[in-house]
Structures are given as structure tokens and as C-alpha cells.
């Protein structure tokens, strides 16, 4: 059990880094709380795997320190770190039975035989592996193999943290649900620090209490799923989280009105101090943009309507800019003209991609604070 502290961590794979662009991981300070469920979310090449490898001890960072419970482990090898890891592709020892697989880390650490047997039984029953304990590990399905890899981490009582590197990649959708809920249940029952690396927002958001979004080697936002969803700190977060992602439209802001082309959009907050000369954009999630009959709200053009089963999503154009909006169940449209209503509290303004907090309008501030 441990909290993990990243202290000014940075890493480059180049021997002669010339600038920040040469760093796979730009400076990071972060504390992973003991017992927390974290997700590290970002596209491939964003540095999340590098960070994971630094935590597990496979990579020694160029700069900075990593502390487990205040103890500097920056240069400690993997095996001395009390961490466990589940990989993208199931790693099982082919020649061994499930029982031997689970016992392997304990055997290597020379634990007494009876203690191993007891511990293996206990973890197997937690993971529903008891019926297959004596089967050969290589003959099992991918999801069972992933459970074995996880089990090899869990059997160790000294484990401080479990790292997951896109563990559901090779699992079928309906099994993903099962495996994900059993992970959550385990986390709750065992009070372990878990760090889950993925490019899949649904996996990250549903698994974690705190999601760390990475982009280009840097952390762009850390927050709860709600925070990431409702107040993306960066247009990248808005785009990356949500399906479809946030609508980001070039805008000009005057007082409490934003202009997208010739369409005027009312804002909930004022932005008196917008930096000059920077790219100003307006961001609103499709979930807060609802299509309506022509004449209501903003005029838009509908290019296509997608039916995803439980909802319909309209691909629209606002003053020539592509965007997405939700289509209410009862709405039916003739032709490609429609109206669009936005929830003003969920309309955000970004300068050069970064969220501008804005000033709540006087008089309304008290009433809106709680809601926003």
C-alpha cells in the first residue's frame, strides 16, 4: 500500500535534448493517492506508456524523482518496487497451470508452501478462477488470461499499486463490461492504488475516480469524469473525451455574446480580459446542444442524422462550421434546415485552446454558481 509521488518528472529518449519538443514526457508533478483509482488517458504517442514504465521501473527518468510513500525509488529496479502490472496482451506462463501461475510470484519470493496455497485459493475465488485452477493457463480465453495476470499481482500482499496497460484491448465488448465491473469491485474490496492506462475514454471514465488526460507528453487536465466532461480545461480534452467530442467553433466574443460567423450565441459569463491576438474558440458539447424545429434558437444546416440506438446525433453546420447535436426523440425534420438550442452554462470560451474562466454576470452569479 502506498501513495506515489511524481516530483518534477521528465523524460527524453534522446541523448541530447534541445528543447521541450524532444521530451516524450514534459515535467510532471502529481500525487497518486493511496487507494485511488486513476486513469491515464490519451492518444498513442502522448507519453502515457513512458510514464507507466517510469512508475513500474522499466525506465529511469531523465529528470525528477518518483517516491513511494515518501521513499525515493527512482533508481530501484522493477522487482524491488512492489508493483504489479497487467499488460495489453495477456501474459501467462504457458507451461504452468492457473494455480502455478498465481503461485509464481510468491514462490519466487520464497513464501512458505501452505501460505502460498492459501493465498492462491483466496485470490482465485475473488477472481472467479477457482473452477479452472488446475487447467493449463494457455488453454483459457483471453479474459480469463487477463484475470490470471491480474491475479499474479493481487496474490502479493506487499503490492503497492497495480498498473493496467490497456488491459481490455483483446477482450470482446460484452466481456469488457464484466471485467470492468469486477475490477471496480476488487478496487473497492482491496483498497489498492490502481493506475489504468488507456486511449479509450469510456474505460478511463468508468474506471477512475480521477482521470489524468495527457497530450503531447504533458498533462492537460486532471479531474473527475464530471469535471472533464463539463469543464474541459483544454479544447483537446473537450475533443478527446465525449463521443462525439466537443464542438469547437472559431468565435469572436463581445460582452456576453459570442459570434460564430454571423450567428450570435448568448453566453452565461462575461470575458472582459480575453487575450488579444490569440485564437478564440467557443466550445459546447453535443449533449448540451439540442436540435429543434427551424426558427427556434440558432439557425443550422443538418448534413446527416446518425442513429446510435439509444439516441440520435445530428451532424450540423453552424455558419459553415461542422458540429454535432442531439436530436430529441419526438423531433422530425423536413429538409436540412433546423434550429439549435444551447445550454448557456455549458458554453465555454477558449483562448489558444485553453479554457478562459470568465466572469459570472453581476446579480446572477449567486443563482448560477450552484448550477454551473
Amino acid at each position, binding site marked *: 500500500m502506498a501513495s506515489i509521488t511524481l516530483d518534477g518528472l521528465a523524460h527524453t529518449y534522446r541523448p541530447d535534448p534541445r528543447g521541450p519538443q524532444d521530451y516524450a514526457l514534459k515535467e510532471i508533478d502529481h500525487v497518486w493517492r493511496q487507494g485511488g483509482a486513476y486513469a491515464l488517458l490519451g492518444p498513442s504517442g502522448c507519453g502515457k506508456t513512458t510514464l507507466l514504465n517510469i512508475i513500474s521501473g522499466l525506465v529511469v527518468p531523465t529528470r525528477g524523482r518518483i517516491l513511494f510513500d515518501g521513499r525515493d525509488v527512482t533508481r530501484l529496479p522493477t522487482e524491488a518496487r512492489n508493483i504489479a502490472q497487467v499488460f495489453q496482451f495477456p501474459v501467462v506462463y504457458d507451461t504452468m497451470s492457473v494455480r502455478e501461475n498465481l503461485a509464481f510470484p510468491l514462490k519466487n519470493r520464497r513464501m512458505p508452501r501452505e501460505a502460498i496455497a492459501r493465498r492462491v485459493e483466496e485470490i482465485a475465488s475473488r477472481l472467479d478462477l477457482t473452477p479452472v485452477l488446475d487447467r493449463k493457463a494457455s488453454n483459457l480465453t483471453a479474459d480469463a488470461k487477463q484475470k490470471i495476470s491480474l491475479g499474479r499481482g493481487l496474490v502479493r500482499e506487499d503490492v503497492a499499486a497495480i498498473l493496467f496497460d490497456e488491459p481490455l484491448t483483446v477482450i470482446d465488448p*460484452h466481456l469488457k463490461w464484466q471485467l470492468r*465491473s469486477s475490477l*471496480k469491485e476488487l478496487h473497492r474490496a482491496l483498497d489498492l492504488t490502481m493506475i489504468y492506462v488507456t486511449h479509450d475514454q469510456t474505460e478511463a471514465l468508468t474506471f477512475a475516480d480521477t482521470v489524468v488526460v495527457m497530450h503531447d507528453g504533458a498533462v492537460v487536465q486532471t479531474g473527475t469524469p464530471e469535471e472533464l466532461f463539463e469543464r474541459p480545461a483544454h479544447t483537446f480534452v473537450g475533443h*478527446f473525451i465525449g463521443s462525439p467530442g466537443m464542438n469547437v467553433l472559431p468565435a469572436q466574443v463581445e460582452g456576453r455574446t459570442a459570434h460564430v460567423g454571423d450567428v450570435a450565441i448568448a453566453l452565461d459569463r462575461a470575458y472582459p480580459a480575453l487575450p488579444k491576438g490569440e485564437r478564440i474558440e467557443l466550445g459546447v458539447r453535443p449533449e448540451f446542444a439540442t436540435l429543434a424545429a427551424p426558427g427556434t434558437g440558432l439557425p443550422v444546416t443538418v448534413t446527416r442524422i446518425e442513429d446510435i440506438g439509444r439516441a440520435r446525433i445530428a451532424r450540423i453546420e453552424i455558419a459553415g462550421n461542422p458540429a454535432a447535436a442531439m436530436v430529441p426523440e419526438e423531433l422530425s425534420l423536413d429538409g436540412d434546415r433546423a434550429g439549435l438550442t444551447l445550454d448557456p452554462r455549458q458554453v465555454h470560451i477558449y483562448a489558444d485552446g485553453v479554457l478562459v474562466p470568465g466572469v459570472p454576470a453581476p446579480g446572477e452569479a449567486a443563482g448560477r454558481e450552484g448550477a454551473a
Partner: protein
Amino acid sequence: MTLELDHVSRSVRGVPHIRDVSLRLERGSLNVLLGATLAGKTSLMRLMAGLDVPSSGRVRVEGRDVTGLPVKKRSVAMVYQQFINYPSLTVYENIASPLRVAGLSRAEIEERVAAAAGLLKLEPYLGRTPLALSGGQQQRTAIARALVKRADLVLLDEPLANLDYKLREELREELPRIFASTGAVFVYATTEPTEALLLGGQTAALLEGGVTQFGPTADIYRRPANLATARVFSDPPLNTLRVTRQAHTVLLENGTVLPARGALARVPDGACTIGVRAHHLEVEDIAAAERAPGGDGLIRLGATIAVTEVTGSESFLHMDMGETRLTALVGGVRRLEPGAPVEVLIDPRHILLFDADGRAIAPARDAAAA
């Protein structure tokens, strides 16, 4: 062309891989093969391509029997889950390679490659080699190479599975448009129900080597003909309840007795199964909410929360009702503690009803409107 599979089966060393599949794929159509890993998607594609020969049944193209005709003599292109390109050739040469093999004139090759590259937004990368590209661009190259042949049949075997979530979303959005611009028969295998819905076209639901249903994608999602299809085509998994009709009441497996009125009047005598999709379950926190007065026609079931998953905009609530696990997808952020007692509300209009053999019972129009 039209491709017809007529009672096709295939066994390998006595193990059936494909069981009695009959499908008719029309010219210019997009057909999704939806099923879990090992459901037979790839096996079926190999039969369509002519890479394998069926143990029984016939394969026809434009009515002509081509069973046993090798793949070389058919007009087929294939895209795989792995990004398969010639690593030493540029993107341009990769796309042009099937045309060079076919011995087309220089001018024609140039024209076709330019068209395919334009369609897949590859123009800026034509001079690079595949390994210098992102996964998305590599797969675009592979798709372009498949399209440039103008094959009659284009098979895509989970083409987006190895891509990042966002890249997948981007390419998935473009694919229907790309497919529509050619006249070929497209067959697209996927494990993800959402992907099938987004692609549209027709879907064949596969389970254990057999097609459980084939029809327009939205139709078979809304009106599955059987329990197997409903299960294959549900993400999150379909919630199922076993019920028994006794005269004027319907008895649920957990002992709840409901009057057989409204949508439940359709429940036939004896045992059957009710299926409800996750987004059709409403959940009320018993501790917090005052009980709404009865008589609103909703089915109410008691359950306990097992796990909650919050995505920021929605919440997945996994609940236990006796031995049955229920999953609800509800809007907004609902953080309910495990063990919390809740009431699950089901609007009877949204239920799917299956008889003891798993066949859908008179699909109600109300349910279809869901």
C-alpha cells in the same frame, strides 16, 4: 454484383465453424457481420472471398455458382485488423501495387490512385513510407489499396480494432461515405454493436457460426427476431428476466407478481424471457426518493447496487437482483454506493419478449418506436 450464400456450412476436423448460413448481399450494399470473437466472422469472410471452400452449400455471384472457384479468379479485396502494407514502398506505390499487377496504363494508375488518395485524405502522405505514418493513416492506405482495385467484393475484417478510440471514431464516420461512392458489396466484421449502428446498412448477427438474423441494421437492433440476436446486438449487455405467465398474472424469477396488463398481456402461458436494454431501465434511489404512487403502469423491481460507473455525462449502474445482474444506463452523474437498495423501473412498452425457445413474440409496435 450480388453475392449469395446458400445454406453454406464449413467444418474443420469435425468442428463446425460455420453452420448453415444463407445470406444475399446486394450490389452497392454495406453489410456488417456482428459477433463476438470466434463467432465465425472471419470464417464467413474467407468463404465469401473463396479462400476456403464450404463443406456443404453453394456460393453464387450474380447467380453463377462460384463454389470452389479460387480467390485469384474472383474480384475480391480485403482489409485486415493489422495494418498490412508494403513497408519499403511509398504510400503511392502501396496504393498503386494492385494496379501494377493488373498491368494498367500509367495514366490510369495515376488517376485511380489520386482518386482513392483523395477519398481517404492521403494526398499529403503519398511520398512517405507506411511506417512513418500514424496507425490511422496506415489503415487508410490499406483501405485505399483495397478500393483502388475496384473489386466487386470488399471485405473488411475489424479494420478499426487496432486504432485509437478517437481515430476509430473519425474513420468510422467517413467509411459509409467512402463505401457509398463505389458500387461494390462491402462486408464489414466487427465485435462492437455501436459500430454496427453507426455504419448502418444491413447487419448479420453471428453466434457460434450461425447467422441469427439478417436485415437492415436499425431494424434488427429495434426488432430482434430472437433472444440470441438481441444479446449479440446489445452494448451494454441485454438485461434479461425469466418470467412465467399464470392466468392473469406474470411471475418474475425473484418472486414479484405483476398483473398481465398492457404490454405484459402479450406474455404467453408458460415460461418466457423479457429483455430490456440498459438505457430503458430507470433507477430510483429508495432511500432518497419518495415512492411515486403506483398505477403509472411501470414495472418496479427491487435491486441492490453492485457497481456504479460514471462517464461524466452518463452513469452505468450495475445492480444485483437475486442471481440476476442488471445494468442500467442513466443520464447525468449518479454515484450510488454499492449495497444501496434501489428500485428499477421498466416501461413495459420498451420490453422485448421472447418465448421459451428464444423466439421474439409478436414484436409490439410500441417497442419498435423506442
